[in-house]
């Protein structure tokens, strides 16, 4: 059965072909880029030991069981079991910064029996079998066994996570290691922690698809209505087949149902242009080209890294303007991951290391006592004791080697270059701080710690005991014997764990200073000591030894022993260390808050550290009431009670004053002191909250209560999070009932899962590793760039694309609705109103470029204003420009314009002539008149909406109108030899030769645009949005500006020190 189409297949097919081609080219290009990136990882060279020789090969060729040689600063290409290292003790240092965000150096151990094999030949001679568990994602768990055949006698050794080097970690401070691959490729722990990358679709795209369904319904509805009407109308045989329009015999014989069906399909073909196929390609182009503006942005270029922003997926540009929740990693994202000793306070005297600011005077330095001010002889003793305490009470190792890194640490003194390594970056900072204050820790030699004091004398202390740090006690101690024979216990720890144990010292002064520093966002530690008599030491020694030798409950007994030993301390002072925030981090967080976003910090770090950062970055402010939901609390109180307590606390201030129940906009409580809540939760508690409990109902309740609490907190800090937990949190918020748009930002491989989970994933191009940047949708060099990314680019792209979408539907309604109306006047015969060329080119050339350029160039508000006033971001929240009422407005406007065009032309053509020679115009002139009005009206509608007229906009808008006119003149001006019809010949010229045609074109365009102009003006006057208020050109250059700058300055952390080591 041949379906007789009202338009030629080319007419409908050409736009589709065009759309598919453009999309294919774009997708192909992006695929090619991905392929290139994959290759660079897969082909990165690694070294393998084969037959006693080192062979280079591509990383994708690594097989399980291969023995690899890894050199310093190389990243492990797969999960490895350490066999031996260049260090004699078979250890190596590794930083897992890109895995879990902890940049400290961790020690890994070689299998005892193989650590002596340190050359290729020797390693090759090892015969061993490794048994290990199935790959699993937990980074910190590994169980295995190695059977080593020595003299054909197998020796079994256990393998634990201390032997396992994880892919993605980097070898540090170790010249080389030999290790055997046990998990490769997708079975590595890092790969198992990857979230599968799913296609992300933006909210705009979802609205777009919803609209499309509506339009599809309209299309089917129109076709259906017309088919029904046609047969109703044709019930009269005179209408059905007047003598002048006889049907062929074949048509007459066709069954009515088939005829009706063919008619229905023919209508579908005729009206199919209402579905804006070309919108998809325009959206794609807009996103693709638009993302270049992000990459090109000079404000997001970082000189230090030499990097600018990278766009990995251009599909989400507009989603950047819709973010409601920001999940940020802490280490390396909010902070520089670079600790710095700021000050110490001994008995209330504050000491600041010199030259901290490279010659610049620190803000507030005038209030500080400098080191030279002599505090008196008594204080002198305390002071020296304090410095020694800090030099001794730590677990820092010294690396005496000159490497590139050494410059950073070694420059401060003229002494031989050496630098410190520790699992805690705070300790390094403290020891370095001491060095700058004159006391240098030299090394640990033969269990003696050596210090170079201010007089350049070496002091030796025998290290007797180390009472290691743990997060419950939150302190650590050392017991040392000075060369004079006295035994001291030095203890340092969090203020809360030191003060209760202090018996003397200037507690009040120190407490004041500690509080002051904590508020400034510094990480504070208190230092205390206790002089031990030989008897006391003996007792202590016994106590410790007993506990250590215990077979049962060793941990508990050790803790008890520590608890007994660390008492009756004398307070020496306190220190303050800064985990330096990234520049403008606080300002950025503040802007995000003002923009109505909720910022969550998700970190693997410990609570105190994380909380300090949150204060420093203004996530929590002075007025914030911080609620804790941590293991410590749930130990005292059941989770159930804790949750209910918190929810009561959080909800009360909202309910009572207003009586309205929930505050509709919790963020607005920023100014009010009491309603500003912050929440701290840790990983363990979180998993308890999320765990499906025994009764299914209670678990759901916990989740809901938790969400309710979170909803009322302007900031949430989640500490001690595993990578997958981060993703869980994001998922939880995503699935909550408002379905907010989430954004995750992070720099390490541990952030990848959350980056992939969130609606928008942003990677920071960290110094370590690129996993986050590679897996993200957008990568930026620094956290501060997020501000411009969201407030400017996000805002613009949202505005742009929403106009693009609405406009496309509008212009297609305008286009097709007259065609629909025409059916009522042509006997429902599917007569096209417009010529084929117009049908084909309307969407792909007459009206496509202006809107594309609009959607690339439009700036309804200036960049600077958007940046300065983050509250503008709220104007576009919740996808407000693509809500149904607005969509309906646009559609109705389209229908109105279509009616104006069609009926305007209809009445004009009603039984009259247009020309002074009395000749009549035919149906194609009618269509051309409607089409001309159409093209001008929809273009002028865009003109009315454009707020930013660059020469490009002028060029494209006027250019495309001129193109339409020129095309029409040409199309009608020549007998086209390849066409078998010449129906448009001279039609356009004839029309232009008639005065009334001109007059009616002007009239109909004006009538079409009038209501929209009126609506705009009235709405602007009566209900102006913030955006519209801002748009009004001000008489003076922006009175809001100075006020803002002031606020900006206040927003800065006073002792935020700009990086010195450039």
């Amino acid at each position, binding site marked *: 059965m041949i379906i007789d189409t009202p338009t030629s297949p080319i007419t409908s097919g050409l736009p589709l072909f065009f759309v598919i081609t453009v999309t294919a080219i774009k997708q192909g290009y992006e695929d090619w880029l991905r392929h290139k990136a994959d290759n660079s990882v897969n082909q990165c060279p690694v070294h393998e030991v084969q037959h006693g020789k080192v062979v280079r090969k591509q990383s994708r060729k690594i097989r399980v069981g291969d023995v690899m040689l890894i050199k310093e600063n190389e990243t492990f290409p797969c999960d490895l079991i350490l066999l031996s290292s260049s260090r004699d003790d078979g250890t190596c240092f590794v930083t897992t910064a890109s895995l879990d965000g902890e940049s400290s150096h961790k020690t890994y151990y070689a299998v005892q029996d193989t650590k002596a094999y340190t050359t290729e030949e020797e390693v090759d001679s090892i015969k061993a079998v490794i048994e290990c568990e199935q790959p699993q994602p937990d980074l910190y768990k590994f169980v295995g066994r190695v059977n080593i055949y020595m003299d054909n006698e197998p020796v079994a050794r256990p393998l634990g996570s201390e032997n396992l080097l994880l892919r993605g970690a980097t070898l540090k401070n170790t010249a080389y290691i030999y290790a055997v691959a046990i998990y490769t490729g997708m079975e590595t722990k890092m790969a198992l922690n990857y979230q599968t990358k799913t296609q992300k679709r933006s909210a705009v795209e979802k609205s777009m698809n919803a609209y499309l369904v509506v339009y599809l319904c309209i299309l089917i509805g129109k076709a259906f209505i017309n088919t029904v009407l046609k047969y109703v109308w044709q019930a009269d045989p005179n209408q059905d087949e007047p003598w*002048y*329009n006889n049907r062929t015999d074949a048509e007459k014989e066709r069954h009515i149902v088939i005829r009706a069906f063919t008619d229905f399909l023919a209508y579908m073909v005729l009206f199919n242009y209402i579905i804006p196929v070309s919108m998809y390609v325009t959206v794609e182009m807009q996103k693709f080209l638009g993302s270049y503006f992000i990459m090109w942005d000079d404000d997001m270029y970082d000189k230090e890294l*030499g990097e600018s922003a990278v766009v990995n997926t251009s599909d989400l540009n507009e989603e950047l303007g819709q973010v409601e929740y920001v999940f940020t990693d802490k280490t390396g994202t909010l902070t520089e991951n670079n600790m710095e000793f700021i000050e110490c306070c001994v008995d209330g005297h504050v000491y600041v290391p010199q030259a901290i600011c490279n010659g610049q005077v620190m803000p507030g330095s005038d209030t500080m006592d400098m080191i030279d001010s002599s505090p008196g002889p008594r204080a002198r003793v305390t002071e020296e004791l304090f410095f020694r305490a800090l030099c001794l009470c730590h677990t820092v190792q010294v690396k005496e080697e000159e490497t590139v890194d050494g410059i950073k640490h070694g420059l401060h003194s003229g002494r031989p270059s050496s630098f410190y390594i520790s699992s805690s970056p705070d300790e390094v900072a403290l020891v370095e701080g001491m060095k700058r204050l004159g006391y240098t820790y030299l090394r640990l030699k033969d269990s003696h710690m050596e210090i170079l004091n201010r007089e350049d004398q070496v002091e030796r202390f025998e290290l007797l005991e180390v009472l290691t740090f743990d997060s419950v006690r939150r302190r650590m101690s050392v017991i040392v014997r000075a060369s004079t024979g006295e035994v001291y216990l030095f203890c340092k720890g969090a203020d809360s764990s030191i003060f209760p144990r202090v018996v003397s010292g200037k507690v009040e002064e120190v407490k004041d200073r500690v509080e002051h520093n904590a508020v400034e966002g510094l990480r504070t530690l208190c230092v205390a000591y206790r002089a031990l008599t030989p008897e006391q030491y003996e007792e202590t020694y016994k106590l410790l030894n007993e506990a250590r030798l215990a077979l049962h409950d060793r941990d508990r007994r050790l803790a008890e022993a520590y608890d007994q030993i660390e008492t009756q301390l004398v307070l020496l002072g306190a220190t303050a260390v800064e985990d330096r925030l990234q520049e403008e981090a606080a300002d950025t967080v503040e802007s995000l808050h003002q923009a109505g976003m909720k910022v969550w910090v998700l970190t693997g770090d410990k609570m105190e550290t994380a909380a300090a950062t949150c204060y420093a970055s203004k996530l929590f402010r002075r007025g914030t009431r911080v609620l804790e939901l941590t293991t410590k609390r749930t130990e005292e109180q059941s989770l159930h009670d804790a949750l209910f307590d918190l929810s009561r606390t959080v909800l009360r201030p909202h309910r009572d004053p207003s009586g309205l129940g929930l505050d509709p906009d919790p963020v607005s409580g920023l100014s009010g002191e009491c309603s500003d809540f912050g929440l701290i939760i840790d990983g363990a508690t979180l998993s308890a909250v999320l765990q499906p409990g025994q009764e299914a109902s209670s678990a759901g309740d916990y989740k809901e209560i938790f969400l309710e609490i979170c909803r009322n907190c302007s900031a949430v800090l989640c500490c001690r999070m595993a990578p997958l937990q981060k993703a869980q949190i994001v998922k939880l918020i995503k699935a909550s009932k408002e379905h907010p748009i989430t954004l995750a930002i992070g720099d390490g491989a541990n952030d990848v899962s959350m980056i992939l989970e969130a609606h928008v994933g942003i990677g920071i191009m960290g110094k370590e590793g690129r996993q986050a940047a590679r897996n993200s949708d957008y990568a930026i060099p620094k956290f501060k760039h997020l501000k411009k990314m969201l407030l400017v680019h996000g805002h613009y792209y949202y505005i742009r694309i929403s106009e693009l979408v609405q406009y496309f539907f509008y212009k297609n309604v305008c286009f097709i609705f007259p065609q629909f109306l025409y059916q009522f006047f042509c*006997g429902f*015969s599917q007569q096209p109103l417009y010529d084929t060329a117009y049908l084909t080119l309307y969407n792909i050339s007459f009206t496509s470029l202006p809107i594309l350029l609009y959607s690339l160039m439009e700036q309804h508000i200036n960049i600077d204003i958007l940046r300065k006033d983050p509250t503008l971001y709220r104007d576009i929240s919740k996808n407000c420009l693509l809500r149904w009422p607005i969509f309906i407005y646009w559609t109705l406007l389209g229908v109105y314009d279509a009616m104006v065009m069609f009926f305007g032309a209809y009445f004009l053509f009603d039984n009259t002539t247009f020309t002074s020679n009395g000749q009549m115009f035919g149906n194609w002139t009618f*269509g051309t008149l409607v089409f001309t009005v159409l093209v001008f009206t929809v273009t002028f509608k865009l003109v009315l909406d454009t707020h930013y007229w660059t020469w490009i906009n002028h060029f494209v808008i006027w250019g495309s109108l001129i193109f339409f006119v020129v095309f029409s003149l040409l199309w009608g001006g020549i007998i086209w030899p390849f066409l078998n019809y010449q129906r448009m010949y001279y039609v356009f010229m004839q029309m232009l030769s008639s005065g009334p045609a001109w007059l009616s074109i002007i009239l109909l365009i004006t009538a079409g645009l009038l209501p929209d102009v009126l609506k705009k003006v009235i709405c602007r006057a009566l209900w102006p949005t913030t955006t519209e208020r801002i748009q009004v050109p001000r008489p003076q250059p922006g009175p809001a500006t100075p006020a803002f700058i002031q606020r900006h300055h206040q927003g800065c952390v006073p002792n935020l020190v700009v990086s010195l080591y450039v």
Partner: protein
Amino acid sequence: MSKEENTANRPDNTAFTQQRLPAWQPMLSAGIVIPGFVIIGVAFIGIGVALFVTSQNIQVLEKDYTGIERNSSCFKCTNPRVKNCNCTINFSLDKLFEGPVFVYYGLSNYFQNYRKYGVSKDAVQLTGDLAYFTEPSTTCAPYQRDAKDKPIVPCGSIANSMFNDTFKLFQIVNSGNVEVPFDGKGIAWWTDYNIKYRNPTTNPLKNAFNDTVKPIFWPRPAYELDPTNSANNGFINQDFLVWMRRSALPNFRKLYRRITEGEYAKGLPAGDYALVIGYNYPVLAFEGRKKVVFSNVSWMGGKNQFLGIAYLVIGSLCVVMSIVMLIVYAKFKFPDEE
């Protein structure tokens, strides 16, 4: 990292890449819109008045001659069995009908814009291509070939249904009837007559039509359409071309003749007239109507109240809206200007 490497990655700092191209940022504020509306409104009202007055001055005389009423003179011709029927309609003008006068025929409820009807022609055949005389396009069906399978030229529904009523106008004066001369030149588009439609170059034209048949409905073959003027035959017959330009809407007029010659060039003087109609075209079957229209034109074409009224309406709307906006702004103290 060296300095060059650093700058290599750095994006170009141009106004375009930084989205800081100089731009004109207009705002639809009251200060622009209200005066704008007033200006547009006043201009439109002016145009509207001019159009309306012009349109009022145009004289139109319509005569329905379908012959539905039994007392109408054309009633007898409505019987399809009556061939070559003539009927006369008398009318009188009480004042001069200013010239040049245009004579139109009008059809109602006639769908020249049927899709099937519209495609039922062979555009190449109508350019005089002899190959298409013997093999007309299938789009012409069912008027592609006749019952004996001979090709129809010109083929298709449009050509087949060509209007074939004829009109003659007589002024009734004392001495008898004086025929008002009709001018049939230039009633079709110049381009249709001179470029788009072509006769075959065969001489005489008749030979080109060998082995073809005339359209079934036609009384005469195409090459004999106008016996009085040999240049007005075949496809480039003015009446044929007028008919071939399909009308946009089901009620339409087509230009039949002009009155431009002799003493009637200045118009039809007051007096009695008789319109003699050669009634051939059946319209009653589909409830159509036929009429003949006399009209003169102005610079803006025929009588059309719509355009003038529309201009007046839109113009007044603009003025009213600007007043409304002014009130709104006055009441809300020009929030824009604050």
